[in-house]
């Protein structure tokens, strides 16, 4: 399954959209326009974008609180996304979920979740529903290296394997769980090794290389569509910024920061598209500018949107 030029351009566009969305999220948080936490996906864009490129209508995705990237990759509206972060009535969750619960079910993006690991069995249930419906659709679950330690991850692996579910588990190994380096949290060198204990395929790829992500996802998705069951994809990546806009970890700054910036997935993919003759340098610049402008508009929309009315306090609790 090779991607058309248009698809590749869309991927680049989405990566820029995510990048500027996150920069806006950090800026607006810094300006005090919303409180709580926001967990930037900066430097990890290639993973969500590459995986989602392998999906088709009817496929579903779930993600963590670091889920803005998955939201936008699944086609989420940046305006309603930023409005959600700001807790506005126009937010995609009416301002009730905020940054950590961004989701648009109408797009198959079944939700971000603020409890590490909790959405993994939920994703299993979504995949089970697809199987019961007799479709060839699949469910993707994004989560972190830290989340791969939670008991529910393993329980889901076991059940998904037993029931042969169309579930693609994408662990985004950005090396840190808040402050804890993966080497202090995971007892094996590659998280994909975990899959061995459950007898299904596990692969490790460079999560900053969108083509590699796409290839691994396509492989897993195809297998799942054909009834081949789950796959664990470990996307090795970096966390460019701090854990969240409000809590600082002791990395990513200074010279280390410089090292990480050099692995930025976006310039890399841009260069690839230029060298493939798909885009010119000028077009590349235009795509970035377009994304930036779209996010500027979205931010304006979000800032100018009204807060929810107090009636909303107790609506959406029960059907």
């Amino acid at each position, binding site marked *: 399954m090779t991607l058309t030029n248009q698809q590749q351009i869309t991927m680049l566009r989405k990566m820029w959209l995510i990048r500027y969305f996150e920069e806006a999220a950090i800026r607006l948080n810094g300006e005090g326009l919303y409180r709580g936490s926001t967990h930037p996906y900066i430097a990890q864009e290639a993973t969500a974008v590459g995986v989602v490129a392998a999906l088709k209508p009817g496929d*579903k995705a779930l993600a963590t609180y670091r889920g803005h990237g998955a939201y936008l990759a699944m086609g989420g509206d940046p305006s309603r996304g930023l409005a959600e972060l700001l807790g506005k009535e126009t*937010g*995609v*969750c*009416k*301002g*009730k*979920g*905020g940054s950590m*619960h961004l*989701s*648009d*079910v*109408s797009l198959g993006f*079944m*939700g971000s*979740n603020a*409890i590490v690991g*909790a959405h*993994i*069995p*939920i*994703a*299993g*249930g*979504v*995949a*089970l*529903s*697809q199987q*019961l419906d007799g479709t060839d659709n699949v469910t993707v679950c994004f989560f972190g290296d830290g989340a791969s330690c939670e*008991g*529910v991850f393993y*329980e*889901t692996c*076991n*059940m998904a394997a*037993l029931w042969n579910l169309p579930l693609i588990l994408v662990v985004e190994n950005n090396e840190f769980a808040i402050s804890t380096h993966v080497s202090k949290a995971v007892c094996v060198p590659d998280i994909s090794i975990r899959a061995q204990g459950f007898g299904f395929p596990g692969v490790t790829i460079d999560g900053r290389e969108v083509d590699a992500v796409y290839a691994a996802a396509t492989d897993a998705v195809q297998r799942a569509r054909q009834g081949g069951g789950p796959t664990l994809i470990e996307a090795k990546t970096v966390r460019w910024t701090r854990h969240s806009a409000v809590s600082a970890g002791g990395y990513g700054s200074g010279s280390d920061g410089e090292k990480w910036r050099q692995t930025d997935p976006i310039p890399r993919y841009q260069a690839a598209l230029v060298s493939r003759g798909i885009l010119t340098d000028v077009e590349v610049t235009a795509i970035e500018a377009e994304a930036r402008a779209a996010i500027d508009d979205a931010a304006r929309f979000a800032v100018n949107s009204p807060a929810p009315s107090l009636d909303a306090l107790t*609506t*959406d*609790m*029960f*059907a």
Partner: protein
Amino acid sequence: MPRELSIAQAVNEGIREEMRRDPNVVLMGEDVGEYGGVFGVTRGLHAEFGGERVRDCPLNEAAIVGFAIGLAISGKPAIAEIEFMDFVTFAMDALVNQAAKLRYCYGGQVDMPLVVRTPVAAQLGFGSQHSQSLEAWFMHVPGLKVVMPSNAYDAKGLIKTAIRDRDPVLFIENVSLYGTKTEVPEDEYTIPFGQAAVRREGDDVTIIALSSMAPLALKAADELARQGIHAEVIDPRTLAPLDMDTIVASVEKTGRAVVVHLAHKTGGVGAEIAQQITERAFDYLDGPVVRVASVDAPVAASGTLEKALYPDQRAIVEACLSFRRADVGGVR
């Protein structure tokens, strides 16, 4: 001849009817398949609906409820069984942080047609980790509905309502009631949530008794009647929503209230019900609402100790008599 069913049979029949009605309903849990559940509640469902819809699961309480949530938000009403209520401790995140909240924090984008069924196996000698009645935790979680039937008729009507409900419902059964048979009509019916049942009318004291305490309270009321004291016995049936109107109306009449539950006293739902009564009917009360509940100690395996821990008929009778003894207003 009216037909009699046990609670186990009634829940079974309720689930069966709903699974026939709605092909999307899926049942999951440990030993719920061919085996029919450790207490036999799901017997025959696997044979009728097959392994796709009646799913035996590994020992994974957290994932069982998590998967059920995934089905629910995909539009498939899911019934998950937690084998003993004590094991819900492994599924608290799923129930409390996910099932109860996702609709809200996604701004209403998803429905949550989830029923978590779980039996309380108290008073059977199973000891501290197999005897707990933990409804108080869930009454404290906005977004959950909590049901505690005390007889087969209610159990059937309420489980059907629970399965049709688009919100998460915790359906708490009591093993000591499984065997008791009561009349259950052949014709279909459902029972709405939030309607308490007045099991017996009386003017002297109101007994609010939950689940297995409801039949016990009726026996206590018989005993009290022989002493000339007429107790009104109310079974709330659902804790969330809770029908305080019925309870308050009764207390306004009797001026005295006793709340009875199997769970430990401190922090139990008795406190909440008593306080709501006090808030709404203070001027009618002859004295404080009295609570009858388990001693605040883990449940010992020893039969002697277990018996001493749980409330019994005598405790209910004495609670009702305490108003007279305390001479608060006197018994009419």
